[in-house]
């Protein structure tokens, strides 16, 4: 049993939040819907769950059409599991009773067995009698997952499931959650605005733009390596973006010329340069090898605006030398330490591999 969404459009008044969205999620697969805050991704989840009235398109679970036209199966009859960012545990019930809430059709013995089973799965057996407010964020998340999985739903819907957790907990919990979801062989749709989370969790990935349109769908790796749209390219990490006009199969950027092989002269182009595309080199230091795909091997002289350590990397903000105060600045992550006030000249090189070119007139 999978979840199949076809041609769903949705508007709140005049404000269109979903524009012809389709997604097929077979059983056992995790689809991550990545998009900025405030795009329609949560609405799509609520439509799939039956918490929002479907306006256009259809929702199918296995062979059952649960929403299309005048058919609008209420949420309580769809058999989907839903997990919220705030976990939404029932504050007046303890962990066991929270998990038991959805197990209405089972006999008392079966119910207890199932509760034990899911609580064991999320490692919360010893907290069965605790009330939600006494639990940590990570424990609450586990209970929410157990509660949603307990009735063995065919479909799991996760709405920003990890953003309520702190950084370290988040990494641990998402790995656990991935394992549990995989073991349950459930069709999962997860929405998130965090690219790293989406890449980690997804079997397939969809990126939604701010207008409710799906901009790209594919394997996580593909979407990351070959973003189909400037918006998608910029969504993964803070990218630099410059615009210009192609000439002679190349486009001139402040950081040097970039090849644009399939372009006629005079195309308006947007060049997205990921921080990873920029290499900084301090004159006089022993040159690390500049990769073969670097454009203009001599690089461009720059002046550093700031260099702040992130531990493994240094976040460097700079501008092109001689460009003046008001000129746009660029940023990159330099591996290891980078001095805020280098004594000699610094040059920036870009690597074609992490540079993406888009027609900006389209």
């Amino acid at each position, binding site marked *: 049993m999978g979840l199949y969404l076809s041609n769903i459009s949705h508007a*709140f008044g005049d*404000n269109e*939040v979903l524009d012809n969205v389709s997604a097929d999620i077979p059983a056992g697969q995790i689809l991550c819907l990545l998009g900025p805050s405030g795009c329609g991704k*949560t609405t799509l989840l609520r439509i799939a769950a039956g918490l*929002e009235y479907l306006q256009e398109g259809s929702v199918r679970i296995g062979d059952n059409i649960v929403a299309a036209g005048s058919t609008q199966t*209420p949420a*309580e009859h769809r058999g989907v599991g839903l997990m919220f960012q705030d976990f*939404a545990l029932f504050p007046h019930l303890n962990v066991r009773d929270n998990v038991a*809430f*959805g197990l209405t059709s089972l006999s008392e013995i079966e119910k207890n067995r199932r509760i034990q089973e899911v609580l064991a799965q999320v490692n919360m057996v010893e907290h069965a009698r605790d009330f939600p407010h006494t639990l940590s964020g990570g424990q609450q998340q586990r209970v929410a997952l157990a509660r949603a999985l307990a009735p063995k739903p065919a479909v799991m819907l996760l709405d920003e499931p990890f953003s309520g957790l702190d950084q370290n907990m988040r990494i641990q919990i998402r790995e656990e959650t991935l394992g549990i979801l995989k073991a349950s062989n459930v069709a999962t749709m997860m929405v998130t605005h965090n690219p790293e989370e989406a890449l980690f969790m997804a079997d397939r990935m969809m990126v939604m733009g701010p207008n409710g349109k799906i901009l790209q769908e594919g394997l996580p790796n593909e979407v990351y390596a070959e973003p189909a749209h400037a918006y998608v390219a910029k969504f993964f990490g803070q990218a630099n973006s410059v615009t210009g006009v192609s000439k002679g199969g190349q486009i001139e950027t402040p950081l040097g010329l970039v090849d644009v092989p399939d372009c006629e002269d005079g195309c308006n182009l947007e060049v997205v340069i990921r921080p990873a595309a920029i290499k900084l080199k301090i004159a006089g230091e022993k040159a690390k090898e500049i990769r073969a795909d670097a454009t203009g091997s001599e690089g461009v002289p720059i002046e550093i605006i700031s260099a702040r350590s992130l531990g493994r990397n240094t976040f460097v903000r700079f501008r092109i030398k001689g460009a003046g105060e008001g000129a746009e600045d660029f940023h990159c992550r330099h591996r290891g330490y980078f001095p805020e006030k280098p004594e000699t000249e610094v040059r920036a090189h870009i690597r074609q591999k992490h540079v993406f070119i888009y027609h900006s007139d389209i």
Partner: protein
Amino acid sequence: MNVSQAAATIGQSTRVGLRPLIDGWTISSILVAALVAIPIVTVIGLAFSPEENIWPHLASTVLPRYVTTTLALMVGVGIGTLFIGVGTAWIVTTCSFPGRKIFEWALLLPLAIPAYVIAFLYTDILEFAGPIQGALRELFGWVTPKDYWFPEIRSLGGAIIMMTLVLYPYVYMLARAAFLEQSLGVLEVSRTLGRGPWHAFFDVALPLARPAIVIGVSLVMMETLNDFGTVDFFAVGTLTLGVFDVWMNMNNVGGAAQIAVLMLVFVLLLIGAERFARRKQRFHHTTTRHKNLPRREVRGWFKFGAFLSCMLPLLMGFLFPVALLINGALGHFEDALGSGFLATAGNSLMLSGLAAVCALAVGVLLAYGLRLRGGNFLNAITRFASLGYAIPGAVLAIGVIIPMAWLDNSIDAIVRQEFGVSTGLILSGTIFALVFGYVVRFLALSVGAIEQSLGRITHNIDGAARTLGASPSKILMKVHLPIIRGSMLTAAILVFVDGMKELPMTVIMRPFNFETLATQVHQFAAAEQFGQAAPPALAIVATGILPVILLSLAITHSRKHLGGEGAE
């Protein structure tokens, strides 16, 4: 998508089940809201279709006096409560002096005493035959009232003082909450910018608390407009008294309705002021970080002054009257038992209990209906139906009685035509009519409390429960009601106690020979049998203390857990 659009999207999508189809919940919510709105609609309708125009007559005789007296009373009580309420709130919030912790909650206690009770108690003490004037006469050898001057308690001024003494807690409560919510930051900033403590009060704290104070004074004025017992007892000719006079003595319902409509103008102005202030209040929150204001240790005469400023209202508004009541009740308790005190108390309990249960049920229905679907229509009609708290009981009584009489007559006519039997009055003049009136008048208390605590439950809880297989009704029973049961109890108690105190509607609408504690107090007081009035009055005051305790607990509680609902 810009930010406001995004916010709108999020706001809408958090609502569960935004269905274009009408469902059972919505229909019942709309029906109930419409039912409760009938009395209010009736009174407004009467204004525009007078059967017999007595305006010219009224305007040439009593009306100018009614209006000026009402205005004078409202302004007087408004100013009195403003000074006492804001003053005591500021003192207990910012000064440190002996007894401050007790005053914090004790200053709410006068709320337990209805104005008509305190009025007869002070009259008993201060009138010509009372102990104080008697002692003065003894002392100075005076004999007749002509020998000396003594303020007449049964006067407009007396009514203003009586009502001020028991109504100031409204202003105190809201002003204190507003002062507590002001962040330490703004006051400290104003100090560092060179303002002294007095300037900090007048330039920063008071303007920030102004919306809350306006709300408090509006509520006080609504209560003043509602009052019947005090003005009747003191013979202060207000509009409320006018309604009674024209109705009961002149037997002119249309005329009473026309005066009632004039009162509605006052009410609308007050509601307008209150709503305006509530809207402004939202922008007056300076921060979400709360910290108790630093209290200044006051010394010497200031310490004594602070203590006295808090002690006087408490003494005159609660301690002294209660002492008098207990004293009077002790002497007359056996009399009271003999004259049917228990039956009367039973009537009051039953009436208020029924009203509390009904108001709670209606409140849950409306608040949950709003949560499920919202929608402008349902929202508007619910707000309209909750306007009863602002409308004086005498006016609402007219709005209840007229449609009920119409319904009774219609039923009677139909049954007579079909079966040749007269049904008489089925609804009018019954407990049903009275309970309905109570529910209309006190609905805002229950809707407000339930809506507020439901609002603190995230809509994701509903979503989670729905996907786990629970229908909206099951969610209400299994999730929402258990979570909000504390607030429901509070709401029920507030309605119950207001029902115990209610006088004007009860006097007009009660069944023949049906007495409640309030009507009994009123009758004994009117007959100057103050001792007889004491036991029922004490019973009302004793129940009235309950919500005061709840309120003070709720205020302390909400300060401790700003997260609110949830924890068991």
